[in-house]
């Protein structure tokens, strides 16, 4: 998979199906990396505006990371699209629940 962005603790790739695949920590350092990739992919997208973000290998997320996901959700809504979170880990799901933001996303698949 081609790499779309990275820092010391986060790698973001684009899968053949167009899904954005994040691996590592999405925190105050990783959030901006993910946001830059999301903005770039959104600009390239010619579909229905729906963005799929695969979170299978996300090991940590905080509100900084969540903000990048919420920003994508807001922009997708403006395009009548949606953000699909694929295989969010227990910690990602918990953060969504704590902040009351689960309904901002479509959740697909469960983390093993």
């Amino acid at each position, binding site marked *: 998979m081609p790499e779309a962005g990275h820092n010391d603790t986060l790698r973001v790739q684009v899968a053949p199906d167009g899904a954005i695949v994040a691996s590592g920590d999405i*925190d105050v350092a990783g959030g901006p990396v993910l946001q830059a990739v999301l903005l770039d992919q959104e600009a390239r997208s010619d579909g229905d505006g729906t963005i799929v973000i695969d979170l299978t290998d996300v090991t940590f997320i905080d509100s900084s990371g969540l903000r990048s996901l919420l920003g994508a959700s807001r922009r997708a809504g403006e395009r009548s699209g949606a953000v699909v979170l694929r295989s969010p880990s227990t910690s990602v799901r918990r953060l969504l629940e704590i902040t009351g933001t689960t309904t901002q996303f479509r959740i697909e698949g469960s983390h093993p």
Partner: protein
Amino acid sequence: MSAVTLGGPVVVQVPAEPAMARLVRLAASSLAVMAAMDVDDIEDVKIVVSEVMAALVEHGDGPDITVKLEFDDDRLLIRGITDAATFAADSADLALSGTVLAAIASEHAIEHTDGRLLILAAYTPHDVSADG
């Protein structure tokens, strides 16, 4: 959880850079392991510390951030401080961070005084919380 015996607080001073959040998380999670916290507590401590670091990095303007970690009975106290000439207490990102801290930390406070931004959080492990 068994109380950890420390000769004093653990103080970490790092450059005020986003990449340093992970380093401080690692220090805090190591301390949580030493205190025999369980896996869920350790994950919670990491989130609390990460929220403190994120707020200080994004809202401070000093060259460094100091985080003090210490136990008060069974609670882990986290105190982060940096310079901040101005401070927008009503920012949306701070509100989201505050929501997370309110849900996970047993107490938290954000103070801006004399050009310094101070964030305090206390974490009480689940087994202690359950015991009342």
